[in-house]
């Protein structure tokens, strides 16, 4: 029986295997890119009887740098790629149980590739949706 905190930490651990990418499970006060922030967006309870399975939907926001930086887009492209050492999808799905914290997971899609304003700074970022099935 894993908690949201455990699953979030498991996702952050997987993201931490990407070289150079910082990870956090809590929204930081200040951004130091490149960084991946793991948040839960919604939970669908009771996918089976007797509390046998819940569906957790997480959003991983990857922020790579100021939107005007030349290298930022290339870096974000590498995170969005479905292959390679920097692939967010590949890094997460290499351990689909997060070390036993969940039954299964899948990085379903990437969205909102573009600018993200935090404070007075506009960053380049993308969001990855991760569906996690756990008891």
């Amino acid at each position: 029986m894993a908690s949201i905190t455990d699953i979030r930490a498991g996702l952050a651990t997987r993201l931490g295997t990407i070289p150079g990418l910082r990870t956090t499970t809590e929204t930081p006060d200040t951004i130091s890119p490149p960084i991946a922030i793991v948040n839960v967006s919604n939970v669908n309870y009771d996918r089976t009887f007797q509390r046998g399975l819940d569906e957790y939907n997480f959003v991983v926001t990857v922020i790579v740098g100021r939107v005007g930086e030349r290298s930022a887009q290339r870096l974000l492209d590498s995170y969005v790629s479905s292959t390679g050492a920097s692939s967010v999808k590949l890094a997460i799905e290499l351990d689909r149980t997060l070390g036993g914290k969940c039954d299964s997971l899948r990085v379903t899609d990437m969205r909102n590739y573009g600018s993200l304003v935090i404070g007075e700074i506009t960053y380049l970022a993308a969001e990855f949706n991760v569906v996690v099935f756990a008891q």
Partner: protein
Amino acid sequence: MAKYVVTATVVKIGTTNVSNSCASATLELTAADVDVTDFGGAGWTEVIGGLKSGTVTLDFHNDYGVGGINTILNPLLGTIATVTLVPNGTVVSATNPIWTAPVLINSVSPVAGAVGDLATFSVSFPTSGEVTFATAGTV
């Protein structure tokens, strides 16, 4: 008894509780309609109840692990197994009765699912013999 939302149905196959792998359960019981229409029917057909039968339909989340639903169900193919259903939790009572149905495991789906979906499968078994109903007992 009040109306209720389905979350806690108990499903057992034989002695194994498979509720945690089951997302939907339906027990449907029917009686054949036997025609007894005669000239006294005033132009209407008349029927009486004939033989009773039933069907148990279950939707599962697939699991090949030790003790998983696949390892429980697949070896039973072609055999009679007992399915036990309790609608709303493990405490059997007049408002939460227990149904016991011998069924023929006449189909299994060891592989099912589309890309990106949670692995699920549905099965439907005909009952074989009397389906019993009780308002007391243990799951």
